[in-house]
């Protein structure tokens, strides 16, 4: 078994990045003009990387499957972005952000990468403000902050409930400036279907033009994968409909190790599913947990009465309610990290206390917050004898100002007024911490192929804290990759343009063509969604919020069977050389059907509970933490990096041992 070299620089943690930057090789401006870089994906990571690399002088080709780079799914992030600015003077620092991220990730991320992330976080805010991103401000005109789960300081910057949108539009505007200069060639409605390697190095891609159906060859001196996460392997998730693993998976099949595929974040506050026709799930921002209290009824009779419509949640008195997070975790209460909150909801619903027809929903209640704010406002306005209605009205105004757009979104979907009756929520797949293995330079195990943002694995360990995804995407794209890639490209100043009429490109294009034709000509009878939904059910039931060896082995067998069925019985109407949405979906689901198996394999191998990965065999038996997840640091303090060997089940495991020199490994306690 080979050992993976993370290439973390020597020296004290705090100096690593600075020393590294001082010592790397640079490419002079004249030579940058001779170097091409391909970027796949235009979300926060890909968009920011494209803009910065183009500014520096490289020739960038950026690709996205949407009709405009502005539509990448980073746009849907609601809550905010973390940065260790300490503007609130509450004791925040780079070290504290680093510490919270490593602890929140349940000690399965790489120290040096996370510290670097914390170190550049402040710069992101400066940069975005300079770009004209309209962050929320206080009456003094300075930037406002709020608090998120799993931390004890206020370090989250936000733009209403649309922070991802505003940050992405910032990166998009920086891209536009470079597109106008001709430094970025933008390929909208294009999908990467393979990566091309020459002499072991990533030198180009095969992309399909989604309008004409033509296969195109694009060469470059380096390829950057910024294609996001693979949450859609569950079919239902908060990801966009088109979000997919294809670019990352094709790269994996060409030699990039896939790390920790089983680390997936199931977000606790999403709108529950309402029927089989459902196509996606909608997130309700974690920021709601600042003011919302989560509960289910204490008595089974009330549960039944509510499900049958005989009682309303508002009929239940305080002592008939079980605020289970406050009961189980008095220190953090409703603001425990996401993985803990999700499992607690599942525990109550599995025990039969779910409050909707499917039995998979809990309440998120703003009654106390409305009352609390109302009383405060009444006091401010000197209204000593304010009626209950007056207090409600005053409180409602405050809650509306804070979360109005989320409440409106909820009402549009569910057709219930969340100011009057508690919201119903249930966990849903949201983010994938796993991804392509990268070293400190963000390079995969394929030389010259980089992975940034959600597509890589490096910063969030086994669980990501809220408002950290936006931070990582922009840190990688604006501030990390532009340095590290230069060090690599400094060896390519004499290479010249990479030709695309070579055997390697021929071979890659032919293999893509064969796969597309195979999908079109299968002659089956079932739509792609039929298989995708089936895969989703297997993943959710057996590789979801809680996992055990028996279930995982069954999942592997079932996914293999489903994959065989797919290749025999899928029906893709239309042709290859035209707009063909079913063909696009079929290709993506074919890759999910392979990834799903590796995902289950990884979960089976990791015989410990950590972060979002909960193995039923590994729980605390007694003591204060009884029933909580039990991590096994002695045997599992490593990153699983899987090497493709022909089929997903034959993948070979490589381990990167994680060393913690600056943080003591402790059990996470939110009690």
């Amino acid at each position, binding site marked *: 078994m080979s050992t993976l070299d993370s290439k973390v620089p020597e020296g004290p943690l705090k100096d690593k990045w600075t020393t590294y930057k001082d010592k790397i090789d640079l490419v002079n401006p004249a030579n940058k003009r001779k170097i091409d870089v391909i970027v796949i994906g235009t979300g926060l990571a890909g968009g920011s990387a494209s803009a910065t690399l183009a500014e520096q002088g490289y020739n960038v080709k950026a690709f996205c499957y949407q009709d405009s780079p502005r539509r990448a799914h980073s746009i849907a992030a609601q809550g905010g972005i973390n940065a260790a600015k300490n503007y609130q003077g509450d004791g925040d620092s780079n070290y504290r952000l680093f510490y919270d991220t490593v602890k929140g990730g349940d000690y399965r991320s790489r120290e040096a990468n996370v510290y670097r992330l914390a170190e550049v976080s402040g710069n992101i805010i400066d940069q975005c403000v300079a770009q004209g991103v309209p962050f929320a401000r206080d009456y003094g005109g300075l930037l406002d902050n709020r608090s998120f789960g799993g931390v004890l300081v206020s370090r989250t910057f936000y733009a209403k409930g649309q922070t991802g949108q505003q940050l992405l539009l910032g990166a998009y505007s920086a891209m536009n400036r470079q597109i106008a200069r001709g430094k970025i060639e933008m390929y909208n409605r294009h999908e990467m279907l393979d990566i091309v390697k020459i002499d072991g190095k990533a030198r180009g891609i095969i992309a399909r033009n989604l309008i004409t159906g033509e296969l195109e060859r694009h060469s470059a001196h380096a390829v950057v994968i910024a294609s996001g996460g693979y949450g859609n392997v569950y079919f239902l998730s908060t990801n966009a409909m088109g979000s997919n693993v294809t670019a990352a998976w094709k790269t994996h099949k060409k030699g990039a190790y896939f790390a920790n595929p089983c680390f997936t974040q199931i977000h606790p506050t999403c709108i529950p599913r309402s029927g089989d026709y459902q196509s996606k799930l*909608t997130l309700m921002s974690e920021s709601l947990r600042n003011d919302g209290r989560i509960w289910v009824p204490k008595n089974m009779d009330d549960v039944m009465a509510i499900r049958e419509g005989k009682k309303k949640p508002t009929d239940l008195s305080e002592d008939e309610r079980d605020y289970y997070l406050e009961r189980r975790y008095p220190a953090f209460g409703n603001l425990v990290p996401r993985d803990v909150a999700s499992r607690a909801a599942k525990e109550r619903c599995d025990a039969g206390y779910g409050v909707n027809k499917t039995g998979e929903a809990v309440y998120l209640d703003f009654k106390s917050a409305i009352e609390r704010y109302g009383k405060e406002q009444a006091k401010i306005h000197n209204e000593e004898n304010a009626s209950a209605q007056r207090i409600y009205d005053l409180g409602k105004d405050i809650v509306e100002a804070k979360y109005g757009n989320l409440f409106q*979104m909820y009402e549009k979907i569910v057709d219930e007024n969340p100011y009057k009756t508690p919201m119903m929520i249930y966990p849903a797949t949201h983010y994938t911490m796993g991804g392509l293995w990268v070293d400190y330079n963000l390079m995969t195990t394929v030389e010259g192929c980089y992975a940034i943002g959600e597509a890589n694995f490096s910063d969030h360990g086994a669980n990501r804290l809220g408002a950290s995804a936006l931070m990582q995407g922009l840190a990688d794209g604006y501030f990390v990759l532009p340095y590290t890639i230069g060090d690599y490209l400094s060896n390519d100043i004499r290479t010249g343009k990479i030709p695309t009429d070579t055997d390697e490109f021929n071979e890659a294009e032919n293999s893509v063509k064969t796969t597309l034709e195979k999908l079109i000509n299968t002659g089956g009878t079932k739509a792609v969604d039929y298989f995708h939904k089936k895969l989703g059910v297997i993943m959710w039931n057996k590789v979801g919020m809680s996992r055990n060896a028996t279930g995982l082995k069954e999942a592997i067998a079932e996914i293999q069977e489903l994959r065989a069925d797919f290749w025999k019985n899928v029906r893709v109407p239309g042709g290859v050389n035209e707009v063909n949405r079913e063909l696009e979906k079929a290709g993506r689901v074919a890759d999910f059907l392979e990834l799903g198996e590796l995902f289950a394999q990884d979960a089976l191998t990791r015989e410990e509970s950590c972060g979002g990965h909960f193995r039923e065999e590994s729980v605390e038996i007694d003591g204060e933490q009884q029933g909580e997840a039990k991590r096994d640091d002695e045997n599992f303090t490593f990153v699983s990096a899987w090497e493709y060997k022909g089929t997903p089940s034959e993948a070979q495991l490589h381990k990167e041992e994680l060393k913690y020199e600056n943080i003591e490994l402790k059990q996470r306690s939110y009690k």
Partner: protein
Amino acid sequence: MNLTLKIWRQKDAKSPGKMVTYPISNIEGHMSFLEMMDILNDELIEKGEEPVAFDHDCREGICGMCSMYINGEAHGPDRKVTTCQLHMRMFKDGETIHIEPFRANSFPVLKDLMVDRSAFDRIQQAGGYISVNTSGNTQDANSLPIPKADADLAMDAATCIGCGACVATCKNSSAMLFVSAKVSQYALLPQGQVEANDRVLNMVNQMDIEGFGNCTNTGACEVECPKGISLDNIARMNRELMKAKV
């Protein structure tokens, strides 16, 4: 619910299109409009017919990709929602629903309900940015206080999702609401002042090159905008344009 759908079908940009009728049954009020379209497509595929091509992605009203003209309204009968957030409870059993692409000369149809909105990207490329390098050597974010009222107004303008409903709704196919939202965001912020004149001139110029019509202040765009972008932005852009020209 049982419904009759009349949908615009067009093979590609060059072929002529036509309305085709599809009956659909067992639709529930809780379904979203696009989930209803998914069901139709699955039925078509099982029958061996080609599914209806339409743009969509996030399905939570923020990416701006979905773009259907439903019963004569961009994004359909509900207010402040995109097509993906429209729910079937807005329709009645037995109703006939007309579904067309966003129509405008500057948004050519690509296939069925998909249109090409790259004109919007080109307008943004003409000046929808602040010329600052992403180097990380900028000043501290709080060294530039911005009055809350201005920041909030800039944010309101910046929430535009670039879907094109304003253009599809306008009888002149004008893109003024879209362009003015970007111009306003930067006009309201100190960071945007340095390039303000060039920005508005270049963006308006590109808007004209793309063939969008003029604004005659009917206000239809504001009514149909899923994000409630205000007409005030158009007034602000006109002022900015005047300032830049004199």
